[in-house]
């Protein structure tokens, strides 16, 4: 049975499991409109977990190496918790009957999906990864059709489900090849696959990429996104647009950077190409949108493209940059969706025209929206700028200048539609007077997002990097006397745990991740071949 060490590794999952049980019990015990309480329970629970997550420290791998609680995992879990907290908080004020009466189901589904994400972030075994992936996905299908009386909602659920199932099939088909090529489901072993079987591995990883592409909504696997976002309830969409994507990215990092060892560089052209396609398609398709949620959906696709730029850097710093991007994206995108929710509640419309004259009606809400839009647009002084900057930086560090240029130029296209919303708010005259009313919890959620977007730019430009660079210096490999190392002194979260033994030459970038893998190979606990041959 798992020892105390393993419990330490599972602490967040155990806490979440307990919360699930609590909510389940509450669902059974509470009836009717009182079920509102369930939402509070879940929200508070997630908040507690979120605080707990900051106490959690990396732990040695558990389950024979299947489950790791490293920096990446902990970071991702904090992110999921933050997003979930905001999402739950925002939906507390949701007075729609379905949400009040079915609060138990709603929160159970969200929390179990969250558990799936947790495990996904920690999974280093293909089987666990797949199960976690499904555990994350299946509740989402239900949640997107949660308003099951609405034609659009069930339609969206079906589309989401169909595309999702096919993608799952493709994913697991790919994973089967990965397993076949590696003769193991352990990602560390995958990293050592002999070249003889490599075509199968390549096939497997490609197919699996499609599956992950669906989850992160990269072009052309994104097509479920706009429909689902438009139809589902907005607070849920706000959450849907960030948390599962973050989980998808974490899984991508696990599989494609940790799991392929030295061949990570091979992914650069592919990821760069996909990033380009996604950025272009997302931004272009967002241009003609009249529905704000749809617009944000497409813009979200474009953002995935930008994150893929960081991914394409296939470097440790790239990973760190994408993670930072995800953080800013959580706050910026959720915030934008929540403002849409507020306005849509008040105006009964999700169209961009509902924002007309918002600056004169509710200046603060308009300002919040403007901040979110600017952050999404990558304008300086808000978090989104730093995020874009960092992913571009990572890409530039590996010489992908063209990709940076494409990305930066398409930022301009993106700004077009963000500015259209800004125009509605600030330039056009209001259609009717009066403030836009929003519930206290929703306002709080928006406020948190504003705080995130504003604070992140101040902190993360500096403090985080500072800390990391100190870590670099402390290791004594700042190579004094050789000032011409052009790489930004940025270390990824994933690498913070274990100091690399050697600095790599330029061009080989995945050192920290590989070091981790190798270290695990030397770790006797990592061998989980308990099965007979």
């Amino acid at each position, binding site marked *: 049975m798992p020892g105390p060490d393993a419990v330490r590794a599972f602490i967040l999952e155990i806490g979440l499991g307990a919360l699930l049980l609590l909510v389940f019990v509450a669902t059974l015990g509470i009836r009717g409109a009182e079920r509102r309480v369930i939402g509070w329970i879940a929200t508070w629970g997630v908040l507690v977990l979120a605080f707990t997550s900051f106490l959690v420290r990396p732990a040695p791998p558990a*389950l*024979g190496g*299947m*489950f790791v609680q490293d920096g990446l995992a902990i970071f991702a879990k904090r992110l999921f918790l933050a997003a979930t907290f905001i999402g739950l908080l925002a939906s507390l004020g949701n007075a729609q009957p379905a949400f009040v*009466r*079915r609060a138990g*189901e709603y929160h*159970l*589904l969200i929390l*179990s999906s969250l*558990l*799936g994400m947790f*495990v996904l972030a920690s999974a280093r*075994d293909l*089987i*666990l990864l797949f*199960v*976690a992936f*499904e*555990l994350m996905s*299946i*509740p989402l*299908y*239900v949640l997107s*059709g949660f308003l*099951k009386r609405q034609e659009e909602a069930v339609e969206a659920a079906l589309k989401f489900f169909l595309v999702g199932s096919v993608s799952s099939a493709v994913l697991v088909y790919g994973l089967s090849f990965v397993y076949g090529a590696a003769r193991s489901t352990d990602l560390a072993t995958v990293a050592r696959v002999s070249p*003889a*079987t490599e*075509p*199968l591995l*390549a*096939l497997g990883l490609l197919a699996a990429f499609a599956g992950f592409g669906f989850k992160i909504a990269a072009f052309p696997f994104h097509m479920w996104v706009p429909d689902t976002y438009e139809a589902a309830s907005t607070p849920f969409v706000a959450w849907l647009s960030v948390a599962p994507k973050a989980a998808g990215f974490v899984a991508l990092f696990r599989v494609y950077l940790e799991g392929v060892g030295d061949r990570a560089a091979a992914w650069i052209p592919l990821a760069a190409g996909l990033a380009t396609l996604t950025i272009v398609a997302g931004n272009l398709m967002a241009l003609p949108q009249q529905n704000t949620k749809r617009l944000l959906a497409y813009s979200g696709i474009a953002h995935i493209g930008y994150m893929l730029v960081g991914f394409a850097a296939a470097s440790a710093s790239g990973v760190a940059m994408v993670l930072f991007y995800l953080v800013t994206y959580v706050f910026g995108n959720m915030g934008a969706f929540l403002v849409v929710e507020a306005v849509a509640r008040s105006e009964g419309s999700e169209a961009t025209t509902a924002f007309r004259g918002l600056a004169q009606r509710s200046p603060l809400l308009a300002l919040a929206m403007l901040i979110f839009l600017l952050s999404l647009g990558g304008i300086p002084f808000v978090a989104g700028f730093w995020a874009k900057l960092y992913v571009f930086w990572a890409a530039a560090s590996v010489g992908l200048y063209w990709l940076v240029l494409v990305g930066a130029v398409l930022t301009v296209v993106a700004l077009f539609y963000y500015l259209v919303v800004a125009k509605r708010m600030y330039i056009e005259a209001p259609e009717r007077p009066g403030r836009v009313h929003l519930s206290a919890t929703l306002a709080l959620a928006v406020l948190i997002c504003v705080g995130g977007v504003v604070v992140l730019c101040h902190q993360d430009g500096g403090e985080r990097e500072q800390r990391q660079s100190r870590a670099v210096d402390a290791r004594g490999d700042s190579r004094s006397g050789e000032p011409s190392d052009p790489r930004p002194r940025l270390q990824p979260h994933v690498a913070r745990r274990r100091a690399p033994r050697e600095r790599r030459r330029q061009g080989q970038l995945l050192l920290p991740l590989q070091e981790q893998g190798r270290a695990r190979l030397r770790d006797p606990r990592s061998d*989980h071949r*308990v*099965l*007979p*041959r």
Partner: protein
Amino acid sequence: MTLEAAGFWVVAAVLLASSLAVVLTPNLFHAVLYLAAALVATGVVFLLLDSPFLFAVQLLLYAVGVMTIVVFAIMLTERLVGERITQTSRDLLNGAVVATGVFVGIAGFLIRASPSPPRPPLVADTTPALGRALVGPFAVTFELLALLLVVALLGALYFARTDE
């Protein structure tokens, strides 16, 4: 030709034929029946691969279970429609091209793959080992699977119930 090879060809033929029938037959009921055939054929493939336990699982849990709910669903939707379930298809050619393309793409990799390893001799019955693995290293995964099933059922229930 060994027995295994002969069996493979037969099963493969059956499997492919029934699969094609699943996607091509106009009648949905027939399609379900063909799917059952395909699943059974798959089970036989498992048998050819020396996995009788999985054959059993496939047959009992999968083929029968899936069949049951699908039939239920068809009954539910068909009766309300009150017409025969003959389903027309969308553009077959496009689908065929894309599906063929995918297959060719996969096959390209398979061809490039190194010659397949020889089939190792069977060491022992795999079933007990399988059981041990599920409660051993994969216990947590198994737990998660349980949760997943619960959640799926919860979702299905949520959708399917008509109260309110």
